[in-house]
């Protein structure tokens, strides 16, 4: 089975599920953060040589790792409603423990995982706008010169001239509208600096030049279309 960890209203996740079901001879299941966290029984066992986990979900399903063929990870938030009655300090502690547990579980998986988690974000690396611009500049993507001071901390966004374009880099392969080889190489380098297997890169195209706007480890699958689904399918069937 392939599990897509996502909120129930995540339309991109639902769309990806339908696409993967058409392409792969495997069940594909959406597992919401609430289903995971409110499991009747959770057990993650770690030794020097192995790691295994079992979630007995409230609806009777059992999720075991190893045992999954892959995971699409879009865990961007965790349910904490069950902690609402606790004192603030206890609630914060429990929320931190929950995040830590899931981070540890995701990091221990040996099945294909898009994306592996990062300490700052369960769904994969996340960087500030400024760090992203720095990576873009180092990668050779076009960036506007900017001065940022304490009292004006955000760099100005690029002026909305040209066409907004999205590209995706998955394991070093660029997916999206045609690019010059130099820009393609820049996007591959950017993805390496960003640190995720799958990255969405947004640019504004103006007279053949791509100006960097933003990037994310949580991607818009529909924008990537068939080509992105095929590439994801290859990750899970390899």
């Amino acid at each position, binding site marked *: 089975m392939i599990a897509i960890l996502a909120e129930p209203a995540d339309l991109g996740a639902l769309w990806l599920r339908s696409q993967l079901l058409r392409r792969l001879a495997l069940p594909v299941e959406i597992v919401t953060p609430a289903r995971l966290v409110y499991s009747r029984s959770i057990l993650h066992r770690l030794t020097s040589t192995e790691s295994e986990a079992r979630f007995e979900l409230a609806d009777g399903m059992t999720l075991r790792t190893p045992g999954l063929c892959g995971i699409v990870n879009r865990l961007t938030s965790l349910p904490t409603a069950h902690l609402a009655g606790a004192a603030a300090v206890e609630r914060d*502690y429990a929320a931190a423990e929950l995040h830590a547990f899931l981070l*540890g579980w995701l990091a221990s998986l040996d099945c294909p995982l898009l994306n592996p988690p990062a300490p700052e974000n369960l769904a994969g690396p996340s960087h500030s706008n400024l760090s992203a611009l720095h990576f873009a500049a180092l990668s050779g993507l076009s960036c506007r010169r900017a001065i940022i001071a304490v009292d004006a901390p955000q760099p100005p966004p690029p002026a909305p001239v040209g066409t907004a374009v999205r590209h995706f880099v998955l394991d070093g392969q660029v997916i999206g509208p045609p690019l010059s080889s130099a820009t393609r190489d820049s996007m591959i380098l950017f993805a390496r600096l960003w640190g995720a297997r799958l990255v969405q890169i947004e640019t504004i195209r103006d007279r053949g030049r791509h100006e960097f706007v933003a990037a994310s480890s949580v991607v818009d699958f529909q924008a990537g279309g068939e080509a992105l689904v095929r590439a994801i399918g290859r990750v899970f069937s390899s």
Partner: protein
Amino acid sequence: MILIAGIPSEPPVALAIEAARQRGIGHVVFDQRHHRESEIVLSLEPAVGLRGRLTCPAGEIDLAALTGAYVRLMDERFLPDVAGEAADAPARARSTGLHALLHDWLNVAGARIANRPSSMLSNVSKTYQTSIIRRCGLAIPETIVTNDPEEALRFVSHCRSTGDDVIYKSVSGIRSIVQTFSESDRERIGRIRWCPTQFQRKVRGHDVRVHVVGRRVFATRIESSATDYRYAQSQSGSDAQLSPTTLPRWLERACIDLANSLDLPFAGIDLRLTETDDPVCFEVNPCPAYSYYESRTGVPIADALVGWLADTESLA
């Protein structure tokens, strides 16, 4: 020139400043308590990335001129002059902005940084670190994280059947006192249903704290009968005894690999050597309070740290 960022009176920061002074290493101290009088301006240059200047009462620093930075910043939300302010108070927002820009630069700077704020996040989860510890060839204690009281009690019985106790502690980076599971804990075991909790087979032996600085390793042996030697006085009635020790070369290399894997050129690694001298690794502290160990053993950690930051000691 190196930057030392933190509270200068705090022992690890004070030792680093003193070591830089004794070695004659050019250094500038960003006293975090002076954040209101400090300013940082960064510029984004195509093909170059971020450049900038930090201005504080100690002087104006061209960030590109720094060879390294020692970072021991406290959480700015708790700085005394803003802690009492409302979340949206201008003074608090400015402090947040200043620290965000400083963190941005530290996270991407080409200089030697001990340690980058983004890399220091790895200890938000001990079990996250565990996966990396194992990949570096180090053993870990048998561990479960569970919200199921029956599984927890089964694990306790399993460990006790081979004569071992079980300890429990936080999974996250929030500091908790390590406790041995006792009979009284059975009565409140149902509380773990609210949140998965970490239980570990207690490893018998003695603790070793390993400080990695670049490619140098400083190991300290700790003798204590307390479950958590940091609280030895309250747990066992006597202080822990610390002494310098040396590790086998393969173990030193594994510790260096582990620090590198976590992007922590300065790391405090917690090991326990079993009765047969087999090392078991618990966790890696990304911002080690090394002064506790240096002051009791005389091992020159601060000297090595500032030397590495000044690039006077080769990484190779």
